[in-house]
């Protein structure tokens, strides 16, 4: 396996460099002001790489101590990723206060439901349980991003291209992690090396997307809203008219049915 190990190291090195580059870019463009949680996540990822390098240097790869530390760090990174995704959702919809209140609730419910669903399909062993937890969170993130984009499309919310690309990066990473975790859980529970390799390739591709998205400085977005009474008076009126149009179609249909 020496070739595979070398390839793995090259990939890890490239990912580490790209991660460092993204941290520098975030600082240089001052995008950490607009995306503080995303920036924290990227920094944490970089620190995780350094910490894991030290852990595997001190303890052997696969030892109980290294596994515990590695999963502990992974837990922190997943948590940071969840906050970063929440920040992206906030960035897209928060300007639209009413929609954001509705969407944030739905996003939370959807994420919780999907996590539980994924957890329900976990297998008994503890290592498998960690993978299932990871898979549940990743599936929840991917679903939340789809729901977010659906909301944005439904309410004709203007999507900032940079934010779209960041979200697409999260979606791609999470989706492939779900498949990766499922694959490993099902057949290759002992092949952690393959799991790491697939995860690294996915993360590398995601880092490229994020670097592209943040190549320019981002500005905080603002929007003036209409008074609340407009919605209260017009929304029921519009719904009533939509209902009437619907009834017209319904009668159209029934009348036709009776007379043909």
């Amino acid at each position, binding site marked *: 396996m020496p070739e595979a190990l070398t390839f793995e190291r090259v990939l890890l090195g490239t990912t580490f460099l790209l991660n460092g580059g993204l941290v520098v870019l975030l600082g240089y463009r001052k995008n950490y002001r607009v995306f503080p949680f995303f920036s924290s996540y990227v920094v944490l990822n970089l620190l995780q790489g350094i910490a894991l390098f030290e852990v595997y240097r001190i303890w052997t790869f696969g030892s109980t101590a290294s596994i515990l530390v590695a999963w502990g760090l992974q837990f922190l990174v997943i948590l940071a990723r969840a906050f970063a995704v929440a920040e992206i959702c906030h960035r897209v919809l928060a300007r*639209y*206060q*009413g*929609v954001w*209140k*509705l969407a944030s609730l739905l996003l939370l419910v959807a994420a919780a439901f999907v996590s539980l669903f994924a957890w329900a*399909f976990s297998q008994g062993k503890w290592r498998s349980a960690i993978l299932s937890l990871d*898979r549940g969170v990743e*599936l929840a993130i991917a*679903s939340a991003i*789809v729901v977010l*984009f*659906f909301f*944005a*499309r439904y*309410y*004709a*919310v*203007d*999507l900032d*291209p940079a934010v*779209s690309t960041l979200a*697409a990066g999260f*979606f791609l990473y999470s*989706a492939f992690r*779900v*498949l990766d975790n*499922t*694959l490993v*859980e*099902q057949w290759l529970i002992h092949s952690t090396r393959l799991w790491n390799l697939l995860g690294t390739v996915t993360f590398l591709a995601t880092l490229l997307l994020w670097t592209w998205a943040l190549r320019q400085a981002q500005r905080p977005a603002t929007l*003036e*809203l*209409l008074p*609340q009474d*407009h*919605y209260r008076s*017009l*929304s*029921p*009126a*519009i*719904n*009533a*008219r*939509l209902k*009437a*149009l*619907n009834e*017209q*179609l*319904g*009668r*159209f*249909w029934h*009348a*036709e049915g*009776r*007379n*043909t």
Partner: protein
Amino acid sequence: MSFVFYLFLVIIGVLFVVFVPLLRNPKRQADPFPAAAALHDFPGSHVIHFPQIRRALAPMDYEFVSQKIPRNALRRMRRERRQVALDYLSALHAEFDRLLRTARVIAALSPEVAARQELERILLTVKFLSRYRMIRLSLWTGFKPLSQLSNLTNLLSGYSVRLEEAIRALGERAADVAEMVSSPDRRRIHPV
């Protein structure tokens, strides 16, 4: 290959199928306040043309005409009238779409929205679209929808007048806000 693997593969596949079209942003950000255009763009209701449609599809009319004109001309007349009915349906659909767009813009720009109203609108949309497709299909296949809708037409016309007045007022307000958003000195303008 196990069931769980296929299950997650299908879920991810479905998420991709839904996500990729959503990624395409249909609107560019040239207008800082795109809602203003949607609020102004609100023409009169198409339901006022329903009496003509009713007349065009009435069986008695066909019976009368069939005694007066040759079969070829009758067939052409049926085809043309069916096309008129299809166009009317399309116009109703367009009106529904415009209303939906307006409702979404108002919801998006409101500091608070009611989940019940939003859900009701989604259900109405699903109902409308399913009915629309069925009626359209029936017209294509040669069925002749009849006319018992004059009351509803009156009702819709009433709604139309009231709503258009309200939306026109809202459009003016929205334009003011748009102007304020693009103004270099926002402190001097009070939108509300």
